[in-house]
Each structure stands twice: as structure tokens, then as C-alpha cells.
């Protein structure tokens, strides 16, 4: 039975990344998308290769390879959790086929385990992008042995299990709190953000502990004891220490078993709880007429506000941008001083490129908020409404893009403005950065919509599949990062010939134009044929 359920779940995961063509056509063109997807992932992995290159050598020379692995294990935990936590609740508890499967003679525990497989897969994908480059760099620079490889492989799985346990616990708490309230969407959003805040508060404290370990590596390394010794053991496990491998695997397994036990107690109740809201009796009131575009925009906005998964997945970057900007303005003098001291130490030739940092940094954040990328898939089984109404589909696309701008553009411009002020840029550089942020927002909205038109996934069993796990979302996010990284690398390598930094905004702007041209010319036909 478990095998059949796992098979169903794996088919579902396969369907997410290589969706069949609709209307009975054969699956085709998937290879190209897998290559594009792999390219995007490799571009992001390249950034972690650079990070690993910086610290691998010094740590190895000091004999602190365990600290190197531990550091990347923590980075992978952060990336894995942030990548999968917001979809966990809906994956576990809000799947459309829950009632069907519960009506069959399937023990709820088995159903829970199968649902957890999807969460594990999601977290694993994100952690692998961090850990595999770190392993590769260490093996390349320091050599390896059988135990080291075994330690890395088991460490990869154990880290995945820890991510699974933590995200499932967060999802479970969200479901528990949600079961006691009528405003479930709002509560889900608030509790998720609160738990994320709590998690990162603790996480950053651990990071500062790690930083102090790095700063005083040799001294502290000799004196580690108690809880810190367990951390050391975990790091040593990656490096090939048999005892460390066992300890980390046992911790991960224990944590996973505890999570499964806790969740299994309330799984059926939370899955089948009545999602009914407090009954509101309709009272007739004056109605207002809106234009077609404004009606379509209101529809997109309502969907965005009513779906905790969609909302959470796309506002984290906004919160970071706005929160970070407020923090910088509150402590502007101290932040300016810090930046000045950093700039004073930077090589002169880098300073020319620093002028594009605000726009680029903001664009990285915006890539996380791929509002348009699941917007076609989210139409799901109600796509017929849009197709049957006398709507110019181009306007429906515009409404989707407008929502993307509404969510991203104000926060992006505020953060860009803040960073420009912090770096003390001149008026021309301010303009250039604001243009970069704006044109990147346009690019990411177009890329997301383009990808979802090409790779829609309408048969989802829970909306997190469309919002979080679909190929279109992943390619829109990583593809955006790839574009930024490649254009910055281009600017860096051309810096001696011609300073293209001021014109860098043209890259996303032209990309947006090309994609929008396709979307508005061919998109309606493509949508009608889905």
C-alpha cells in the first residue's frame, strides 16, 4: 500500500516538473525545460561555489574542516526551510485528494508519510543547491576519502530530514492554531510569519556563535564542549568521522520520528476539520460598476489575499525589503559608517561596480516574489471561466502583471532608494539604480508569466504545488538570479574596456520587452489551447 501511495506521490512530483500537454497531446519539449531548469540551478549553485572557495582553504589549513561543513550545513538549513516552509501546511493538510484517500482503507500514518515525501523533496532540492557545491569545492581543494564521501551523502540526507522535521513542525503549529479560529487565512499568514521570525532570531544567534567560532577558531576549537560539541560532531560527520555521521543521522532520525508522532496524533482531525467560515448573511447594498481591467485586477488581488500559500510565498521578500529599509533609516549613521569603512578597504576597480549594487540587490530580493509565475496554474479547474467570458486575454495577462508590480515595485523602489542613500551615490547613479529595479520588476513579471504559459500545471492537488513547486516558479526565480549574475559578470569582465554598469538596466528591460511581445502576441492562443 505504501508503495502504491509513494508511486502516486512521485507521479505527482513528476507531473509538477514535466507537466503533460493538455487535451491528450503527448508530453514533449520537456528536455529543453529540464536543461533550462538545470542551468538556472547551476547558476545559483555557482554563487555557493564562490562562497565555498573563500572559506574552504583557510578552514582546511587550520584543520577546521568540520567547521566548514557545519557552516554550510546551517546555510543549507536556512535555504531549505525558507524554500519549503510556506508550502508545508497546504501540502500536508489541504490536498484536494485528502478526503478521497481517507475514504479508502489507508492508515492515516501512511498518508502522512507520503505527504511528507513531497515536503522532503522540496527542502532537499534547496539544500542540495547549497551543500553539493560546498562538497565539490572541498573535495577538489582538499581531496577526499570513502568516509568523507559517505559522510557527505548521509549528511545531505540528514540535513534534509532536519529541514523536513522543522518545516513540518511549523506547518503543524499553523494547522493547530488555524483549527481554533475562523479567520484561517489571516491566522495562517500571521502564525507563519511569527514562526519564521522566531526561527531566524534563533538562527542568527547561532550564526553569531559560528562567526565567533571562525574568528577565534583555534582557541575555541580546543575548548568546545556541551552542546557545541554536538555541533562539532555534526561537522566532523560530514568530514568523514564515523561517530559524527552516526550522531547526526540519529539526531535527524529522532527529530523526524518525533515530528511524525506529534503530527500523526492530530492528522485526521486537522485534515478533515470544517473549513467553514462564520456564516455572514448577505445584505443588499448599492453595487458599483468597474472596468474590465479593474475587475480582472480585483480578481487577482482577491486570490492573492485569500491564499495564505500564495501570499506568504510572495511577501517575505517584500517584508525583508521594507523592514530592512526602515531599519537602515533608523540606524542610518551607524550603517553609513559601516559602509564607508567597507568601501575604504575595497579595491578601486570594484568601486565602479558598487554603483549598481542597490539595483542588483533589490532585484535579487524581487526574484523571490514570483507573483506571475504560478498565476496561470492557479486558475486550475476554473480556467474555463476566463476562457468562456468575453475577455481579451491580453487584459487578463495585464491584470496578473499589475498584481506583480503592486506587490514588488513599491518595496523594491523603497529599498533601492535606501541603499542609494546609504552608498552616497550621485543623482545619475540613483536614477540608474531605480531604473534597474523597475526594469527588473517588469522582467520578472514577464518571465514568470511566460514560463507559466509554457509550463502550466492545472491539475494540482494542493495549491502549493502551483505556487511553490512548479517548474515555472523555479525557473522564474532561478532564471532571474541567473540573468542578474550573468549581467554582473559581464559588467565585471568588461570593466577595463568599457564601463557598462550605467547601462545594465537595459538587460532586464530588453528581456521584459521581448517576453512581453511573446506574451501579448502568442500568449492568448497558447492559453486557449491549454
Amino acid at each position, binding site marked *: 500500500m505504501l508503495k502504491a501511495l509513494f508511486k502516486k506521490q512521485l507521479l505527482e512530483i513528476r507531473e509538477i516538473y514535466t507537466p503533460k500537454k493538455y487535451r491528450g497531446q503527448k508530453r514533449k519539449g520537456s528536455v529543453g525545460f529540464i536543461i533550462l531548469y538545470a542551468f538556472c540551478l547551476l547558476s545559483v549553485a555557482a554563487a555557493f561555489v564562490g562562497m565555498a572557495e573563500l572559506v574552504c582553504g583557510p578552514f582546511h589549513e587550520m584543520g577546521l574542516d568540520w567547521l566548514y561543513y557545519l557552516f554550510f550545513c546551517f546555510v543549507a538549513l536556512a535555504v531549505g526551510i525558507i524554500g519549503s516552509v510556506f508550502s508545508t501546511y497546504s501540502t500536508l493538510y489541504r490536498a484536494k485528494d485528502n478526503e478521497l484517500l481517507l475514504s479508502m482503507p489507508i492508515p492515516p500514518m501512511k498518508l502522512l508519510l507520503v505527504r511528507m515525501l513531497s515536503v522532503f523533496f522540496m527542502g532537499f532540492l534547496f539544500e542540495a543547491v547549497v551543500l553539493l557545491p560546498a562538497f565539490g569545492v572541498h573535495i577538489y581543494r582538499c581531496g577526499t576519502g570513502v568516509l568523507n564521501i559517505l559522510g557527505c551523502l548521509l549528511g545531505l540526507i540528514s540535513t534534509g530530514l532536519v529541514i523536513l522535521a522543522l518545516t513540518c513542525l511549523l506547518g503543524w503549529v499553523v494547522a493547530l492554531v488555524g483549527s481554533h479560529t475562523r479567520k484561517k487565512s489571516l491566522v495562517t499568514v500571521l502564525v507563519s510569519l511569527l514562526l519564521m521570525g522566531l526561527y531566524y532570531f534563533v538562527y542568527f544567534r547561532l550564526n553569531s556563535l559560528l562567526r565567533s567560532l571562525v574568528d577565534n577558531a583555534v582557541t575555541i576549537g580546543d575548548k568546545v564542549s556541551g552542546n557545541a560539541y554536538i555541533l562539532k560532531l555534526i561537522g566532523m560527520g560530514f568530514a568523514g568521522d564515523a561517530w559524527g555521521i552516526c550522531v547526526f543521522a540519529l539526531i535527524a532520525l529522532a527529530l523526524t520520528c518525533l515530528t511524525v508522532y506529534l503530527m500523526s496524533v492530530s492528522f485526521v482531525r486537522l485534515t478533515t476539520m470544517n*473549513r467553514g467560515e462564520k456564516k455572514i448573511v*448577505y*445584505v443588499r447594498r448599492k453595487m458599483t460598476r468597474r472596468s*474590465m481591467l479593474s*475587475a480582472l485586477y480585483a480578481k487577482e488581488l482577491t*486570490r492573492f489575499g485569500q491564499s495564505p500559500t500564495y501570499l506568504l510565498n510572495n511577501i517575505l521578500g517584500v517584508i525583508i525589503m521594507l523592514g530592512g529599509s526602515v531599519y537602515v533609516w533608523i540606524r542610518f549613521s551607524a550603517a553609513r559608517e559601516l559602509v564607508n569603512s567597507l568601501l575604504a578597504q575595497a579595491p578601486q576597480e570594484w568601486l565602479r561596480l558598487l554603483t549598481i549594487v542597490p539595483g542588483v540587490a533589490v532585484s535579487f530580493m524581487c526574484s523571490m516574489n514570483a507573483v506571475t509565475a504560478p498565476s496561470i496554474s492557479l486558475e486550475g479547474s476554473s480556467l474555463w471561466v476566463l476562457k468562456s467570458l468575453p475577455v481579451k486575454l491580453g487584459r487578463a495577462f495585464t491584470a496578473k502583471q499589475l498584481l506583480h508590480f503592486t506587490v514588488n515595485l513599491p518595496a523594491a523602489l523603497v529599498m533601492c532608494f535606501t541603499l542609494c542613500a546609504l552608498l552616497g551615490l550621485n543623482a545619475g547613479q540613483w536614477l540608474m539604480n531605480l531604473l534597474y529595479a523597475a526594469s527588473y520588476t517588469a522582467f520578472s513579471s514577464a518571465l514568470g508569466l511566460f514560463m507559466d504559459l509554457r509550463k502550466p500545471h492545472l491539475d494540482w492537488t494542493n495549491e502549493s504545488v502551483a505556487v511553490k513547486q512548479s517548474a515555472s516558479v523555479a525557473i522564474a526565480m532561478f532564471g532571474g538570479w541567473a540573468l542578474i549574475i550573468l549581467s554582473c559578470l559581464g559588467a565585471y569582465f568588461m570593466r577595463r574596456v568599457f564601463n557598462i554598469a550605467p547601462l545594465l538596466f537595459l538587460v532586464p528591460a530588453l528581456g521584459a520587452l521581448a517576453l512581453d511581445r511573446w506574451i501579448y502576441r502568442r500568449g492568448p492562443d497558447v492559453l486557449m489551447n491549454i
Partner: protein
Amino acid sequence: MLRIEHLTKSYGEKKAVDDLSLHIQPGEIYGFIGHNGAGKTTTLKSCVGILRFDSGEIYVDGISVRANPLECKRRLAFIPDNPDLYDFMSGIKYLNFVADIFGVGEKEREERIHRFASMLELEKDLAQPISAYSHGMKQKLAVISAWLHAPRLIIMDEPFVGLDPIAAHLLKGLMREHCDAGGAIFFSTHVLEVAEKLCDKVAIIREGRLVVSGPMDEVKGNSSLESVFLELEDQHA
């Protein structure tokens, strides 16, 4: 009102609809009958402009669905077999959305929503999210949204599924009233008794091909529609 000429639509190798021609005139309730997978839904969706067809032509009020789908959609309404509406909206928000798309004026929409929602006993629930609606309530909402912009042609796929007996009775009344006012209705159903009593004309389709069509009395003669349908199925099996 609706003219289907030599409609053909394939899914890969399989012909779902093969050279189908029908003509639905103003004032007619036209029933569309066939076994599961006969091509009824494909035909209805092609008429609405949801599905692109391979060959043939479909005209709504003399306007080609292929050449001018938007103008055709403005003149018709569609209710699918499974009313998957926007779960994230409330009933009233959905109706207002549809009214906005069709450009229905404020007064007209208020009057029509009140009339149809109170008739189908859905008015009190209009503020509820659609996700909280039962299948029947969603079907009622789909019916209200179809009648909301006073279309000339209404196309429905299995409209009675999920409706309680009272709502089904009311819907039949609404259909007759619509056609008496000069509109037309083209709908598919498996409930042959309903088709027999309600429809002015009927078409029976099998494996994408039209088997018989015409006025109800001519098609069924002295026997019931059910026996005619079963007989035709046997002949073509």
C-alpha cells in the same frame, strides 16, 4: 441563433466530434443527448469558444466563433458540467465580477441578482465564500451568473446535476421563460425524461457523429425518448 456546420474536432488520433451540423433557432430549447464520451462537451465547449476546433464553422447570431470569438461570447452564457468557480471569492463578488466583464449596469445587476438569487434561495448565502458552497449551491450560482447579462443564447452542460428538485423545477421554468422571450438554449443531459418534457428539439450523438436530430415529436414518434435512444445505441453498437 446558433449554427454548427460540419464541426470536426480531434484529440490526437481520436475524433471527438466528426462532421456535426446543427441549427438552433430563437425560441428553441434544444437538447443534446449521447453516451459518456460521445462528444457532447467538446461540441458545447467549441460553441462557447473555449475549445479550438479543427474544421467546420460555428455561428452565433451569424457571427463566426472562429473569426470573432469575443463578439460571440458577449451574446451567450455557458454553464459547464462541473461548476468550478473562483473558490477564493464570495458569491456576490463572483456575480459582480461577471457583471463587470459583461458591462452590466449597476441597477440591472442589482435587480437581476436579487431576482434570481431569491428565486433559487441563494441570496442569504451570497456573502459566503464559494469554497464553502455545496455542489448544488455552486450550480445555482453558475445559473445566476449565466442569466445575469441577459444573453441571447445559453449553453449548458448537464445543468440539472446537483440541483435539488425545487431548484431543478425553477431552472426548467427559467429556461422556458428565456426561450419564450426570444432566446435559445442548447444543453446536454442524461436525464431523458427531462429532455423529453422540456425540449422543443433534440439531437442524439454517438462517437462524435450525429445519429438523429429534429423536433422532439418527430424524433421519438409514439415511443419514449429513452426507448428511441436505447434503440439507436443498439443499432450503432
